[in-house]
């Protein structure tokens, strides 16, 4: 900021001499423009945050949120002590960590290869087609997964019986397969899209570095490793921090839609459990459901802050 003030010079100095009130009054039209969006954010984001008090109360419809009696941490304790707690937490963490480990490096590798590949036209075709799955909606995606993995008529069923010479076994209903189906269908859908950011970062590589490395006899592979990879590292760090902030967020819609009675023991995650306790059946337990949801948000936010702190310590890049 200080540097900026010096360069802008007299204009800035006059500005800062004026009182804050004057500067605000001069911009009254901008505040007017912001009135609606700010009201919006407060109404639809901060008011529900206030609704989190429900987690510490025993909700009584007749008394409303504020009239209901306080119960302290009773709702949280009820959740931690229920037999569902370990199952739901284990499923959530298994799916999300598996998903992170498998789907985080792939877009980077894909971007590095695309960037290093010399054929311009071929490159363009591959890049454009690999975005396509990103635009398929969750409902349709799950529909496609169920059709293609059908053990009788899907690609899976056909290839299996073609190669193994016997009818395929059902994998949709197999609980242990749930996480693989979830994670790999996600990778199919998002790798191309997630690579965009890295490809963009790679387009800013200093070409002099490549020239210098070439003169020193570095092969293309070595240049990918020592120049390109280093270039995308800061971007990758940011993406990792953001991913860590969502460690307890498993794609809720997709899990809900992929669930069936046979795999429920492996597919029930915190967010779907929140939904089922609170809203899916007629008379939900709003307080318990809010408490579980809040537990989820707090863990996420804490993870975000921790990973951000570590990353700032290690290499100076963070999101705040």
């Amino acid at each position, binding site marked *: 900021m200080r540097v900026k003030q010096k360069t802008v010079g007299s204009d800035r100095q006059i500005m800062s001499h004026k009182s804050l009130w004057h500067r605000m009054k001069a911009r009254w039209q901008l505040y007017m423009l912001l009135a609606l969006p700010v009201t919006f954010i407060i109404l639809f984001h901060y008011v529900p945050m206030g609704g989190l008090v429900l987690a510490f109360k025993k909700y009584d419809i007749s008394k409303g949120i504020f009239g209901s009696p306080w119960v302290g941490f009773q709702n949280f304790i009820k959740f931690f002590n229920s037999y569902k707690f370990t199952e739901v937490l284990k499923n959530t963490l298994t799916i999300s960590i598996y998903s992170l480990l498998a789907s985080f490096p792939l877009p980077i590798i894909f971007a590095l290869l695309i960037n290093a590949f010399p054929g311009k036209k071929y490159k363009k075709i591959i890049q454009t087609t690999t975005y396509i799955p990103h635009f398929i909606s969750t409902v349709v995606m*799950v529909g496609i997964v169920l059709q293609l993995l059908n053990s009788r008529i899907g690609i899976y069923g056909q290839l299996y019986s073609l190669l193994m010479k016997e009818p395929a076994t059902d994998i949709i209903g197999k609980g242990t397969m749930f996480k693989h189906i979830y994670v790999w269908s996600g990778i199919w859908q998002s790798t191309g899209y997630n690579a965009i950011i890295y490809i963009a970062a790679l387009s800013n590589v200093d070409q002099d570095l490549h020239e210098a490395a070439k003169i020193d006899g570095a092969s293309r592979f070595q240049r990918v490793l020592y120049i390109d990879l280093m270039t995308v590292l800061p971007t990758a760090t940011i993406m990792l921090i953001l991913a860590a902030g969502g460690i307890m967020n498993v794609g809720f819609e997709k899990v809900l*839609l992929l669930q069936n009675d046979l795999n429920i023991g492996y597919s029930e995650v915190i967010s779907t459990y929140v939904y089922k306790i609170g809203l899916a059946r007629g008379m939900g337990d709003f307080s318990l459901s809010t408490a579980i949801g809040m537990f989820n948000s707090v863990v996420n936010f804490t993870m975000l802050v921790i990973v951000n702190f570590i990353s700032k310590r290690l290499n100076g890049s963070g999101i705040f």
Partner: protein
Amino acid sequence: MKRWMRYGSSDKIFYGVTFLVLTFMFIIVMYPILFVLASSFSSGQAVTGGKVFLWPVDFSLEGYKIVFHNRDILNGFLNSVIYTVTGTCINICITMVAAYALSREDLPGANWIMLLFTFTMFFSGGMIPNYMLIQKLGMINTRWAIVIPGALGVYNLIIARTFIRNNIPKELLEAAQIDGCSDIRFFTAIVLPLSKAVAAVLVLFYGVGHWNSYFNPMLYLNSRELFPLPIYLKEILISNQIDPSTVADPELQMRIAQTADVIKYALIVVTTVPVMMIYPFIQKYFVKGVMIGSIKG
């Protein structure tokens, strides 16, 4: 070819491997899409018998005929169009206005207001408090519940704000101010016309979001006539419920049982095509938009 000769042997191996990996990825991504397309144009027996691999077998439009004769699907399609168009319009207006005001560096407190917005990206009240709010506002089972609550996406706001900051020169603002141009007039006369590229990106992001949205409509709507397409899709694709009585033609009713799978494939194609059709037009801007968003994430 000439270039290929110039590469050293280790580079040749590297490029060869790269080519193979990229081609492999291309096939993995494209094959399911082609399979769905081919199946949607095949006959019921061919699909149920597992005869389709890459090309339609016994070419037929039966699936599409049934899809277009189904009242539920037509109704859902219409509702989805309504939600997408109105929702996106509201989104664009509110996002551009907020992005412009927050892009101005001479606005006292802009950073604090921005913090108010960005915090909501990382922390939220959760499902139940949201539901209770919508209930309190009397929006349950109305179209408003679908288009209003998500009217401002903070991520998109950041994209638009960054775009305006980087693309509208400060000198333009100074010159306009000397000529006595007000802040609102500067927005409508200069910023908006110069922000078409970012508006296109926002249309794509918000529009696709509305078109594909499933959970909120499911949560907030009860009457079938208000349901958007994804809810009907879920019934047919995932819960395997296609009600023969919703198809007017009795002859078609008979055939539904035999063609259930073809119907599903046709339905997948019909609902995904609208999104795919706008994509090529916006593609150029879209990559830019993702890049802007990532720089100032």
